[in-house]
């Protein structure tokens, strides 16, 4: 498979830049993991972290690390990677640099089903929310995809974006209607609606891991076809790619990834929107590099934000969704002002 997007003369330099970028991301991710395990209500020194992870004794700090910090870190890595990857995929498929997984209705679908779960079925804990949220994400994004495909050309970037906006608005209104009728539902829902890694650790990651894995495999496998698609639907067709099949694969991957992450942590904005823009600055538009790098960067970003949230308002903690928006917002504005965004 040739690389249609890479300019020929700069290939050597570009490759070095990509490898350096990936290495840097990996280093940041490892550092973030260590910090995520070490920082918290009880600070654990680095040798303690090492000790607990590799030669545990089952005493003292080791229990904190192995039963709380490591699962939480793992969940952060999984959810962050899923959101970063989903963000890169949906920006590619909608050819819209402002798209994030929420555009497919994932967040509002999950929210509506969680509210129904609370209101009609009396579900009260996070483990119960997971399946409602996941089902809602699936139903909403399938609806968006089907509605976005009604035109002759099948799902196109514009029809997907419009269908996403319409379905999201409808679901948000229905969610509000239920919440306003029942104060108790509002009380339970508002804590879910702020994305967080706290208290949703081991079992929840276990509940969604296979969906995450399937989504990641499908998404990464679609990279070459997505490269062709970025040259335009007609070019992709003439290169022998089925546009409809590629789009379907992409939507399935985005739904599985973003749906699992949202089910596990609640709606987390910004990772899917910002990460592909940052990553594109060193990978260029080639999806075979962009997708894995976005996964790495998403994981690192989510973990860093989670650690910051645990530090800034001691002894309490700020939910990761809020931290992300508060540091991500200014960063995003700075990015927009600094230079021209790399076009998709």
């Amino acid at each position, binding site marked *: 498979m040739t690389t249609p997007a890479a300019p020929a003369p700069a290939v050597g330099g570009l490759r070095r830049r990509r490898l350096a970028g990936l290495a840097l991301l990996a280093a940041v991710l490892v550092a973030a993991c260590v910090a995520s395990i070490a920082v918290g209500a009880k600070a654990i020194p680095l040798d303690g972290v090492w000790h607990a992870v590799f030669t545990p004794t089952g005493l003292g700090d080791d229990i904190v690390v192995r039963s709380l910090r490591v699962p939480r870190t793992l969940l952060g890595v999984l959810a962050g990677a899923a959101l970063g990857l989903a963000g890169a995929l949906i920006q590619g498929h909608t050819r819209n640099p402002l798209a994030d997984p929420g555009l497919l209705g994932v967040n509002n679908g999950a929210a509506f089903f969680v509210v129904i779960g609370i209101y009609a079925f009396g579900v009260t804990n996070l483990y119960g929310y997971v399946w409602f949220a996941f089902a809602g994400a699936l139903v909403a994004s399938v609806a968006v995809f089907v509605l976005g495909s009604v035109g002759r050309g099948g799902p196109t970037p514009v029809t997907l974006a419009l269908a996403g906006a319409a379905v999201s608005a409808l679901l948000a209104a229905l969610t*509000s209607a239920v919440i306003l009728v029942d104060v108790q539902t509002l009380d339970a829902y508002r804590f879910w609606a702020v994305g967080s890694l706290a208290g949703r650790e081991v079992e929840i990651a276990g509940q969604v891991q296979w969906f995450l894995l399937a989504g990641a495999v499908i998404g990464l496998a679609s990279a070459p076809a997505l490269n062709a698609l970025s040259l335009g639907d007609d070019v992709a067709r003439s290169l022998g790619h089925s546009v409809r099949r590629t789009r379907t694969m992409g939507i399935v991957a985005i739904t599985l990834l973003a749906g699992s992450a949202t089910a596990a942590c609640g709606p987390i904005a910004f990772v899917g929107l910002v990460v592909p823009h940052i990553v594109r600055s060193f990978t260029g538009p080639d999806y075979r590099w962009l997708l894995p790098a976005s996964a790495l960067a998403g994981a690192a970003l989510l973990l860093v934000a989670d650690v910051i949230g645990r530090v800034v308002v001691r002894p309490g903690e700020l939910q990761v969704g809020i931290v992300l*928006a508060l540091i991500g917002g200014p960063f995003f504005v700075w990015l927009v002002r600094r230079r021209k965004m790399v076009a998709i």
Partner: protein
Amino acid sequence: MAVLEKQRVPGRPALRARGMSLVWRPRYVVVLAIGVAALVLGMAANIGRGEYPISIPDVLAVLMGGGDSGQRFIILDLRLPRSLTGALVGGALAVAGAITQSIARNPLASPDMIGLTAGASAAAVFVIVLGGGFGLVGGFLAAAGLPMAALVGGLVTAALIYGLAWRRGVHGFRLVLVGIGLQAMLLAIVHWLLVVAEVFEAARAYVWLNGSLNARGWEHVLPVSVALVVLLPAAFLLAHVLGALQYGDDTARGLGVPVNRARSLLLLVAVGLASVATASAGPIAFVALVAPQIAQRLVGGARPPIGMSLVVGAALTVIADVVARTAFGATELPVGIVTAVLGAPYLLYLLARYGREARA
């Protein structure tokens, strides 16, 4: 249709004064009259509804100066201000939408996109949730200061976005991107406030966040009326510039339009209207997006017409409020939920039409 009309214009009588001109269009006048009639009937139905129902003829009689004192109190002091607020807010939002859609040359552009709503929401929820915590001043702020806080929040946010997006002129795309960045932060603050709030304060905030006309009185009518009286003529005066902007910046410059200044002034008018409207009734979804488009379909033409958008937006909001108050038995929903439920299918209709055009 639009093309046909353009060809017929030369044969029509035109009214001219000081460089402004107006073409006599019978269709516009007829549709406008129907729109106003729908608005009046909608308001009469809205005023008649309630725990103490009053028939539409009685409502009209009271509005003309008749009726008994009980009916006069209920209608003039309680229900008329609510309906008027709805009509004015809907009209203001629709005009703001018509302007932003014309400037952006995009039917999906609405004031929400420039971040106004999020700024107003964050300020309003801040007052609702924390307002009670500052003693007397807080109590006063929470009661009378809520619309003021929302107004200031919306205007400050709009100024911030405009300033941050300014780099040798404001590019539409950069404006939207900066707006998205700021919106994400403001909405995070709203979410955080909802989590730390007492549950009943959170419920109050949620009602406001969905756009509600509940318990709106004359004090809510006044600011929107003033804003409309001041800004609407400005919108009409600047409207002839919109026509030139339609063909792109360079063409507009070639036609002698000072593009950056005109766009800034028009944005200012739109921001003023939208933020005063949002301050009065909360962010009512979809009116700014849908009303200008409906108005344009009704009267034809190349861009959303301002006067017609005003009437359509007002009628739409009042009728949606009737539905919000009646459709769910004893529970009154915020009007914004109804406009969102009605607006979403409209977006889908746009989508289906897009599909047909692609086929044709």
